[in-house]
């Protein structure tokens, strides 16, 4: 029966081609939007795996306009259950262009804590920061590729300081001492420099943007989070699980928006399948009547018509995946030269896309197939 299905859809090449193209466009959208959503999920997961063991301590009221000073780091360290704590100072690498998709950042970190903070992440070249390092930097893999830098090269970092009514841009060269391997996390877009040099360069005194507290092995992170808030004034602490929950919620909203747009596009493709199949069933009324007179059962007609619709769905899915994959490949290639990536096509996404395309075909083919299967053979044979 499969050869008949192939024969039927290849008999009307232009119509089949247009229908497949309709589905392909929908699946193209699923791949591109889904790829974006997958990328954010993966980046989040990998970033979390690098920092999931630490409690984040932030200024009460959020990041904007307020910061923590070094004394807070000492206070956090004194909280029972905290084995270690250190502050990070974060600033965009290029203050002129705050990238829409995050962009590169400079992270000031106590040199002796860097290796600990990066857990099992290895270097592709050079070394981590060490105590006593001056204007030295360890680059994430994306930053190194974006600026084509290697160990020993200099990276120009800018800072913008407001003096009276004017803002003045300062620049400083940092010497690259190490390049991190690809992690798939936000650290790929980070330039890690000694905290004291970052504070000086950005004119931030002894302040930090965030404090990371490492719990004792036997301490419960949730309890410890509350204990930090009780013991240290004017701070807000976020446990790893709470942080995961918060980020996951925003990622769900993002995923919903992107996937809904893609699904809408795919449903429009599905309607084109239904339209094509309804036309095809109407044109072949006599043929179906004849098949019934020859002894075809309802299930034969259903299989044939739904098979055609499903096959068009699968073909559209394949074309959409190839098209979407090609676009994502070239976009990622282009964005990589600018230090970022935006899409990840995962096996899961491909399976979802192909199953979705097939289901779309099958569901869109159901009504036309039902009409074909329910035809009275006598009426159908009389049909002109």
């Amino acid at each position, binding site marked *: *029966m499969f050869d*008949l299905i192939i*024969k*039927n859809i290849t*008999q009307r090449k232009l119509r089949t081609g247009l229908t497949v193209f309709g589905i392909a466009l929908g699946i193209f959208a699923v791949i591109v939007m889904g790829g974006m959503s997958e990328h954010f999920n993966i980046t989040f997961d990998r970033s979390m795996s690098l920092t999931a063991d630490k409690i984040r301590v932030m200024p009460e009221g959020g990041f904007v306009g307020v910061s923590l000073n070094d004394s807070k780091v000492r206070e956090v360290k004194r909280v029972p259950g905290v084995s270690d704590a250190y502050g990070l100072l974060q600033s965009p690498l290029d203050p002129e262009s705050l990238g829409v998709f995050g962009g590169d950042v400079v992270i000031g970190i106590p040199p002796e804590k860097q290796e600990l903070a990066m857990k099992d992440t290895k270097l592709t070249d050079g070394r981590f920061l060490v105590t006593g390092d001056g204007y030295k930097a360890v680059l994430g893999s994306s930053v190194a590729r974006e600026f084509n830098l290697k160990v020993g090269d200099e990276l120009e970092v800018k800072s913008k300081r407001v003096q009276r009514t004017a803002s003045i841009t300062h620049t400083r060269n940092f010497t690259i001492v190490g390049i991190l391997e690809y992690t798939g996390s936000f650290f790929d877009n980070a330039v890690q420099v000694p905290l004291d040099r970052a504070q000086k360069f950005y004119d931030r005194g002894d302040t930090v943007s965030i404090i990371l507290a490492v719990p004792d092995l036997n301490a419960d992170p949730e309890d410890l989070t509350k204990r930090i808030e009780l013991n240290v004034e004017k701070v807000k602490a976020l446990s790893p699980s709470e942080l995961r929950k918060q980020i996951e919620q925003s990622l769900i909203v993002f995923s919903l928006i992107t996937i809904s747009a893609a699904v809408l596009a795919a449903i429009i493709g599905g309607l084109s399948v239904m339209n094509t199949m309804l036309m095809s069933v109407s044109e072949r009324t*006599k*043929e179906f009547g*004849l*098949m*019934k*007179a*020859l*002894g*075809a*059962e*309802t299930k*034969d007609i259903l299989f044939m018509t739904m098979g055609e619709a499903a096959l068009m769905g699968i073909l559209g899915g394949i074309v959409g995946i190839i098209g979407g994959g090609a676009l994502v490949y070239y976009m990622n290639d282009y964005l990589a030269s600018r230090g970022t990536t935006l899409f990840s096509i995962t096996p899961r996404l491909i399976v979802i896309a192909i199953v979705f395309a097939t289901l779309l075909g099958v569901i869109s083919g159901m009504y036309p197939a039902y009409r074909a299967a329910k035809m*009275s*053979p*006598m009426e159908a*044979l009389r049909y002109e």
Partner: protein
Amino acid sequence: MNDEEPILRVRNLTKTYMQGKIPVHALNDVSFDVDKGEFLSIVGPSGSGKSTLLSMVGLLDKPTSGCAMIDGTKITEAKDSEAPVIRREKIGFVFQHFNLIPTLTALENVDIAMRFARVPKGKRKERAVELLAQMGLRERMNHKPSELSGGEQQRVAIARAMANYPAIILADEPTGEVDTKTRDMIVSLLKELAEKGQTILIVTHDTAVSAQTKRVITMRDGKIASDTKV
């Protein structure tokens, strides 16, 4: 007299349509038997009920009352799910307009009837080739209907009707679309099949066709007016 059970037994078959509020008796208490290997025709003017009778016997429509039995199976009491099985195992159809599937070749048009009967692929092809050869179409089996003459198309349709070794072939005006030469060829082909034991029932209004059959049932106003064996 034939001692065997008739291949087709029709008893008190009645079909009444409603034309608005007025009942129209398309078939009115029709009864007859057809023996195995009989070659008979049903004739009559338009509206006499001959095509309606063929639809009832071919399970394409249901009678208002009465019953029909083919090869021992009471077809008028068959459920919807049983109808396709009876159609493909007991009945072969030949239509006036040939009704071949335009996208398939002659071979595939014969093959398709056996597909629905779940005949294995190898056997289907063997049988289709054999039938088309029997119809003198060995050289034309890979041609599509549009590439065949009317006579050739009707021969493909006859081969298709024969494919599943039906108990009876029901031919509805099989020569209605062809010239006289082709008509004679088709009728002699059907006659030849009947001589080999195939039961064939032709509905026609062409007296030249009915004259070739061994029995002629004449219908008028939904009833059998005469039943003559030659």
